[in-house]
């Protein structure tokens, strides 16, 4: 237990075991923080968590070849034994499917030429139509019904929908409830298209026409809007379309409907169009891909519904053709809800260490951390110099010089350590306001130049009391005054305390939160602790790995400093700790 007592090997082993076990919970949070700062967002959400910044790789065998996937949830949380996965493209070994296995579904728009004009129609109950028999259809752009020959129906894939005055005509495709019959279900949304126009534009003639962009358009009044002086009308698109500037058009950009299988949306993204062998490379995923389409590419985006057979199960999927990652610079908008579900035991996993060092660079850039660090260093440097010197001076005076009231004043100094900071914070705040020191570093620095910390004074005083008086006397004989004695004899001999005080003072400034919060207003004057708090407030919903990178950067200097100065530091802490 103490020196001189011999310990057995078994005893030492037991001590080491306990030490290591005890060290784990101490180090674990720090390790977890550093680890989180090196992960990707996806990795943060993987359960069970990985203990290294690995990017695990999981594979399933699809189409006879092994394909990489991302496991979103391996079923251990939900207890389903079914894993939800996201398929990943791998450059050297992409998943390739024959076009024949990707089946284009029959979701289409139908058109019929009636009275010389082409109209979009909705066939009703197409299954009942016999050859030669006429079919009842709804004329979608005339809002009435007609009988037409099924043979005269032409089909076209939907490309976009009209929007007038920023209001889209809510046409939507009611697709794929069951793949076999879905081919003919094309319908209006519940609400008819409607626009609001000013009252004076609406002429009361029986056909109901609205002058809009110098054209008289058929319209039907739906409601009179009381306050605004507007009426709501149902506007009918003329056969040749409305002459609407493209800015007022809303185009369906492939982001609209999804296809459902088993009440779940499935999507696929084509990574590379059909190659010379006619194979298409696809990606299935669970994530919401937020890739934007540049406007000039909009026309190229066509929407089809495809079917893909995976794991022997046919899946209906949505893909976006056109611009693709194969073409540099082009981006695609893809929504990928739903995921593949696989039996968890079919997944083969391996891991590779891939720490995301980039998180640090990003965290550094998100806030002006360089400036915060410099600000804090500036304060810290002055505070450390001020504290080391002023506290040393005062401590020396209390330790060695004899003057009236010394013991009383020293008691007073000790008493100030007992008073909680909250008592003085409000009047001090008012005082600094009166001095005009708000939004400057003066409130953070000046008190420390004036030996603000009774604790450090006490530390110096205790240490200097133990230095032999002989040295001092020798210096006096050599003609040194008290100041020179202090500087030439006492301070060099108090090096451990100087180190302790310097380290404590630096850490105090580096971690100080309340006082900068109160006294610093300007953004460019903030300190690291404030910056970190801002970071937390501003980013709490997302990207925790950046926050963790920022906090790691914040604790790094204190930990490093502690390791370098630990001998002196420990000694200082021990001396002070006992005395409080």
């Amino acid at each position, binding site marked *: 237990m103490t020196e001189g007592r011999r310990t057995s090997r078994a005893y030492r082993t037991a001590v080491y075991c306990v030490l290591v076990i005890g060290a784990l919970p101490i180090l674990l949070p720090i390790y977890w923080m550093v680890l989180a700062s090196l992960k990707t967002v996806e990795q943060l959400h993987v359960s*069970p968590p990985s203990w290294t910044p690995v990017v695990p790789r999981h594979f399933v065998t699809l189409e006879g070849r092994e394909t990489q996937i991302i496991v979103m949830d391996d079923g251990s949380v939900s207890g389903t034994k079914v894993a939800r996965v996201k398929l990943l493209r791998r450059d050297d070994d992409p998943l390739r499917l024959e076009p024949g296995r990707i089946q284009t579904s029959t979701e289409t728009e139908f058109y019929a030429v009636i009275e010389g004009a082409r109209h979009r129609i909705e066939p009703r109950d197409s299954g009942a139509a016999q050859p030669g028999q006429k079919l009842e259809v709804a004329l979608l752009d005339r809002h009435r019904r007609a009988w037409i020959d099924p043979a005269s129906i032409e089909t076209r894939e939907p490309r976009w929908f009209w929007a007038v005055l920023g209001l889209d005509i809510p046409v939507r495709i009611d697709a794929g409830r069951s793949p076999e019959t879905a081919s003919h279900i094309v319908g209006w949304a519940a609400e008819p298209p409607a626009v609001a126009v000013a009252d004076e534009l609406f002429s009361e003639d029986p056909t109901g026409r609205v002058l809009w962009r110098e054209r008289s358009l058929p319209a039907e009044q739906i409601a009179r809007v009381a306050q605004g002086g507007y009426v709501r009308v149902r506007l009918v698109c003329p056969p040749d379309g409305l002459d609407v500037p493209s800015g007022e058009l809303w185009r369906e950009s492939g982001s609209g409907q999804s296809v459902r299988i088993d009440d779940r949306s499935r999507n696929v993204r084509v990574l590379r169009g059909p190659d010379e062998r006619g194979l298409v490379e696809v990606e299935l995923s669970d994530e919401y891909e937020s890739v934007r389409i540049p406007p000039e590419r909009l026309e190229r985006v066509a929407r089809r519904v495809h079917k893909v057979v995976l794991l022997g199960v046919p899946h209906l999927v949505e893909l976006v053709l056109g611009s693709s990652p194969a073409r540099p610079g082009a981006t695609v908008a893809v929504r990928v809800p739903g995921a593949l579900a696989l039996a968890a035991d079919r997944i083969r996993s391996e891991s590779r260490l891939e720490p995301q060092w980039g998180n640090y660079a990003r965290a550094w850039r998100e806030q002006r951390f360089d400036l915060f660090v410099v600000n804090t260093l*500036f304060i810290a440097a002055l505070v450390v110099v001020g504290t080391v010197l002023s506290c040393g001076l005062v401590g020396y005076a209390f330790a060695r010089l004899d003057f009236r009231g010394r013991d009383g004043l020293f008691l*007073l100094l000790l008493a100030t350590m007992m008073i909680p900071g909250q008592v003085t914070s409000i009047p001090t705040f008012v005082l600094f306001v009166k001095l005009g020191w708000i939004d400057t570093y003066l409130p953070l620095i000046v008190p420390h130049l004036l030996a603000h910390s009774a604790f450090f004074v006490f530390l110096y005083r205790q240490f200097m009391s133990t230095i032999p008086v002989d040295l001092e006397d020798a210096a006096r004989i050599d003609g040194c005054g008290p100041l020179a004695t202090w500087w*030439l004899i006492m301070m060099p001999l108090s090096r451990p305390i100087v180190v302790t005080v310097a380290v404590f003072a630096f850490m105090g400034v580096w971690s100080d*939160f309340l006082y900068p919060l109160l006294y610093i207003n300007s953004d460019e004057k903030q300190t690291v602790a404030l910056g970190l708090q801002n970071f*937390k407030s*501003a980013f*709490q919903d997302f990207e925790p790995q950046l926050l963790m990178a920022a906090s790691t950067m914040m604790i790094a200097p*204190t930990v490093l400093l502690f390791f370098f100065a630990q001998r002196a530091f420990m000694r200082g802490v021990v001396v002070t700790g006992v005395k409080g």
Partner: protein
Amino acid sequence: MILSLPMRKLIQTLANSDPWLLTLLVGLLVVAGFCRLFMRAASPVPADKTVITLCKPGFKRDREEMKEFRAAFHAKHPDIHLKVIQSALARKPDTMIAAGVPPDLIFVGGNLLDYYLQADALLDLTPIIARDPQLRRDLYGDARGAAPDFFPQLLRPLERDGRLFVLPVTYMPFFVFYSKDLFDRYHVPYPDEAWDWQGLRERALALTRDANGRRPDQPGYDRSRVVSYGFHYAKWQHGIENFIRQAGGRLVDETGTRIVANDPRTVEAIQFLYDLKYVDGVCPPGVRPQKQDYSLKKGTLGMYLYPVFRIPTLRAEAPNLDWDIAPLPRGPGGRRASMVDINSWGISSRCRNPEAAFKLLKFMVSAEGLAITNRHQIFLPTRRSALNRARDAGGDLPPRSTWVLTHDLDHGYAELPFATKQYYQDVYAVVNEHFERLLALHNPPYTPAEMCEQLTREANSVLTRDRAVPGAARFGWVALAFALAATVFLVARLVGRRRGGLSKLQRYEERWGYALISPWLIGFLLFSAIPILISVVMSFAQWQTLSHFTHGEFVGFENYRVALSGEDPKFWTSVWVTLRYALFAVPAGLIVGLALAILLNQRVRGIALFRTLFYVPAVLPAVASAVLFWHLFDVNHGWVNRVLGALLPSGGLSDLLASFGESFPVAWLESALFTPYVFVLLSLWTVGGGMIIYLAGLQNIPTQLYEAAEVDGAGRWKQFRHVTLPMLSPIIFFNLVMGIIGSFQVFNVAFVMFDGQSSPGDSALFYGLHLFQEAFYHYRLGYASALAWILFLVILALTALVFKSSPLWVHYEAARGKKA
């Protein structure tokens, strides 16, 4: 050149001095110098420009908005430099106003106009507007009948006796955001213009599904495995007040002086929301933004009643989601109501350059300024022209139903949220707390009707609380004079104890002694003694909110009475929170600290490394450790939940959680039940500070005692029991007292963990945090001073206990052979 003697002496002294110390100090000064240069370069101070300050706290998008806004304003007015202050402290502008350095432009949120007017903080804009015919026309229209460009409904509530102190810039309407995808998936009709509460409930029921696709009203519905929820709404007062007004109820009567939350129609609205959550089960369980498990974005939420600022978030985060907005549903009886919160800006009454500030204000409401604001789409502009432009600028981005944007203003059912004439923020806090307890947290402690009764009672007691005693003496320089006199007296008493003849040498030494302690003496007087004495005086005075420091009034022991009599319920809450924390943290810290110290006192190789290791958490900045624990206990990616998730199927953990009314994943920091223990764990983690003191004590126990004990045949346990423990008892006691004192001063971690806002059920309202909030959020400086002094008295009492144990100390000191 001949150097004078002192100069030569100085140089000689420096030349002889310790190179190590000199290097350290000079090196630090050089570092400071370089830092200064860098700071100058990074933020050059504009010369010959008028500086206008504006304070706008906020999130990342607010920062981006202000960046753009600033650039545009500088381009237009090159002679004015706009300084934007963005702080983590939500009430920073108030702090600045109270500090007498208000920002030139003050943001006045919806209901805070009277609050700022009471403090006389705002400049009357009426004369300036009168000189500006264009702005007048935009605000009020003109005599020829041209319609005003500002929505009259948003301007009228801001007028006070026909005068205007602020200009409305943006407003915040509520909409129902809904995911068309989810509606389509379950073939539910979209919300339309005429839908009502019943329609809301039906749709929400149809959208809520479990993993088997069953609805809550179908048999076999599995509540523990919900895939999507139907309806979620903003849980703070504005969001809920929508429903209250739709039911025809109110929170505050028309005069703004009495709470009427027990109105049956108000209760009906609350009951409706209560039933949606607890009976129908169509609202997701998450309570705070942290818990994002159910969202439109992820396709796990159907409808979300939320302010307009969800639009940019959804556009950015879910570019491929098909979503739209709908007007709020009609209440019973077809009543329509929708809250709009007006964000307005005023000029500080202490602004040095009102002209320049007004230019900035005008720029804010100009087409250009509003366009920038709108580009970030946080709120909607208050001018019709700007709003139309903003709507058109949205282009092909959702929402498609842009007519909804102005629906409430066009149809005249936009209403301002409640406001009280006085103590608005206190009432607001009470209202929100009850709403949160009933509708956001788990297991509400009361029924809606009971909640409304309790809310009415508590909020009314806040309103009728008369703080300042009229006619009392003014506070002022008297206090300062008193403080100075008392300090000088005290110092003189301490100094002037010894009298009698002194030798020359003694006098010389005495002069040097005073000279050398003078830095501390000055610092002590300025930063300790005077503030302490002022604080005593302040604790007997009260201030009207935000008013000038010298305008306080003496109220005797009123502040102490309010605290101790329970009139401020948060006082006893905070005491309880602190005591409960101390009750767990202090004993646990004592035991763990002692155990660790004994462990680290073993003589084995490499023990120094372990000592360092165990001490590391104690040197981490409190902010960083709070952030770290916040991350560890995060509901989604925290280590605790992740590990629990890995263990859960194997053990009875889920049963254990269920017995606490919790389910997995646990929102530790959103639960009033668990939050205190997170703080206890945090304190245990940083136990190194106490441990090192034990270690010092252990090392000072003379070895002979152990040897003697061994000779007497004592085993390890007996040695511990009869030698170690008695010898350490003073240190244990010391650590105990210091632990209690320390727990009364917990502030940083509590502040950082919850961003200085309220914690769930005030479970982390530590005494220090309460004091801070009273002082710098509510500006009850007198009351906060009283709180500080109560704290001081408690600490004093505890410290007296330490001194009572002095026999033990004396024994210890003697053993160490050193004089204190």
